[in-house]
């Protein structure tokens, strides 16, 4: 209201001010974003480029100077069975957990879109796991999954899902299963909230029109809800997928930093910090490979989103 009066009262002033706010001050916006951009350039972009340089050296930690070895570190990493296994684990973990999070998150979002008393309270409650450090979530579940006195271990043994004395964390497959369960527990709220936001902007008129046309709820879900949610879903999937691909903390806490079940990030870390100094550069090479995979995934998803918008 106030804006309208002002605009009609002094239109010229308004426009010139708008211009001053939008474009008029020349370089000022650049000065304002410069510190942020410089920090990101120095601490994120430059290190990525420097990673590539380091990954082509034999041993960057030697003070006397390292020698250039070309792609030798990459060949070594790609031929390492532990690396191949880490790729498999990373992809399995990412695809399964993100798919489950999308499904469960969608269910929770549909539930939260319903009215019930205490809805705000429920929304807060499901946000709590999301605010935890991953390392603590892992630790909490470790308390429940451990072989000695874990409550989930006890329940699974009682239900004969596990042999007496066994635990889910003893085998690589069990450990990946546990990590998927924990990840779904922790990040489904994020998925659900993004999808809920998408659900709430779908105009009711669409459903009303569809209802008049006699379409069933199931049909409405496929023809209205899902297409309208497509972009929110793609954005949520991209965030989650990129986050899952770089998984580190969860596997570190579940394995105690051990090398038997590794994600790519953990493989990279273990090479850099747990081996000899000559393992450092191959570790950096593995991190560069992970970076390239993440870049490709995000380009694919961004392109898909763009295409679907046009």
């Amino acid at each position, binding site marked *: 209201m106030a*804006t309208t009066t002002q605009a009609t009262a002094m239109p010229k002033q308004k426009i010139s001010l708008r211009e001053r*706010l939008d*474009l008029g*001050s020349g370089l000022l*916006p*650049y000065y*304002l*974003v410069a510190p*942020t*951009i410089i*920090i*990101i350039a120095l*601490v994120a972009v430059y*290190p*990525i480029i*420097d990673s590539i340089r380091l990954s082509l050296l034999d041993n*960057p930690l030697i003070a006397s100077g390292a020698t250039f070895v070309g792609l030798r570190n990459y060949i070594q990493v790609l031929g390492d069975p532990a690396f191949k296994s880490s790729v498999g684990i990373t992809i399995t973990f990412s695809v399964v957990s993100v798919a489950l999070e999308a499904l469960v998150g969608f269910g*929770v979002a549909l*539930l939260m879109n*319903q*009215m*019930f008393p205490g809805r705000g309270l*429920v*929304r*807060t409650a*499901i*946000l*709590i*796991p999301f*605010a*935890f*450090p*991953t*390392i*603590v979530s892992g*630790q*909490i579940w470790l*308390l*429940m999954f451990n072989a000695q*006195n874990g*409550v989930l271990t*006890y329940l699974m043994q009682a239900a004969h899902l596990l042999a007496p004395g066994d635990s889910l964390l003893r085998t690589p497959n069990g450990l990946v299963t546990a990590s998927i369960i924990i990840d779904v527990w922790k990040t489904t709220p*994020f998925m659900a*909230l*993004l999808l809920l*936001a998408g659900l709430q902007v779908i105009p009711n008129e669409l*459903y*009303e029109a569809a209802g008049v046309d006699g379409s069933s709820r199931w049909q409405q879900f496929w023809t209205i809800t899902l297409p309208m949610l497509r972009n929110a879903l793609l954005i949520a999937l991209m965030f989650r997928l*990129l986050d899952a691909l770089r998984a*580190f903390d969860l596997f*570190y*806490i579940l394995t105690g930093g051990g090398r038997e079940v590794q994600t790519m990030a953990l493989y*990279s*870390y273990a090479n*850099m910090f747990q081996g000899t100094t000559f393992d450092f550069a191959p570790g*950096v090479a593995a*991190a560069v490979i*992970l*970076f390239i995979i993440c870049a490709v995934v*995000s380009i694919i998803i961004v392109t898909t989103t763009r295409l679907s918008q046009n």
Partner: protein
Amino acid sequence: MAVREQVISTAQAKVADTSPRRRANWGVTGRYIAVIVVLFIALAPFYWTAITSIKIDSEINTSPPTLFPQSFTTQNYTNAFASTQPAFAKDLLNSTIVAILTTILALIFGSIAAYAIARSKFLGKGLVLAIVLSVQMFPLIALVGPLYVFFTGTINVYNTYVALIIPYLVIALPVTVYFLTSFFRDLPPDLEEAALVDGTTRLGALWRIVLPLTAPGVFTTAILSFITVWNDFLFGLTMTADSSAQTVTVAIPLFNGEHQIAFGEVAAAAIIVTIPLVIMVLFLQRRIVSGLTAGAVKG
């Protein structure tokens, strides 16, 4: 807060009553059961940790496990704070200092950047946003090698707060810029325009008008930045060597000894680390939700 919640949910309920889509499409009982299941799954692990932290050792190790604690002790908390291997209390202090310093720096740099992004159209704005957002998502392990070499060699800050604050700025800035931009955009520009007419500089308008008026949003952003930094594990692990700078998330796995795990202590430590976060989320949930989802909806 509670009253506002009430008003808003009543308002929403009224809207919902008139919309045929939201009326009774799930059986009421089914809906309640689903809500209870969701709540149970979300909170049960937290409950388990809480009761483990107050049980005495012998009860922790009984089989079957007790769902309601039969014993009560604060010994686990005392032990966690007194722990020297890891130096839990010192690590807690390190995390707090580093997270606060990073948040202050991120707010300073982030607020002026967000102000430019929210209030002006400049060539390359899309690129700036794209860079800021993509940093949030890329694999941080790719930064570890070069930063380690740089910190141990070139500038020799390894195992100090500086070695943490520098990479933490990179994870805190995207959050800060993203949320502040969204909060600044929601503020009508009229007041700043008036101030600019009166001869205030742009930065003066940001400092004297925009920041005070968006104070709740700025506070939310600060909390989120704090949580993001507090929750980091990777840089804490790789950029520190001992408790002179080691963060609390790095201390947590160290409680799991080689053979014997002090379960009660571990549980107490986990509770101590998360209690501040839980309180922050409880206070700010509505703002966090609207900030988180703003981008998804506005596109």
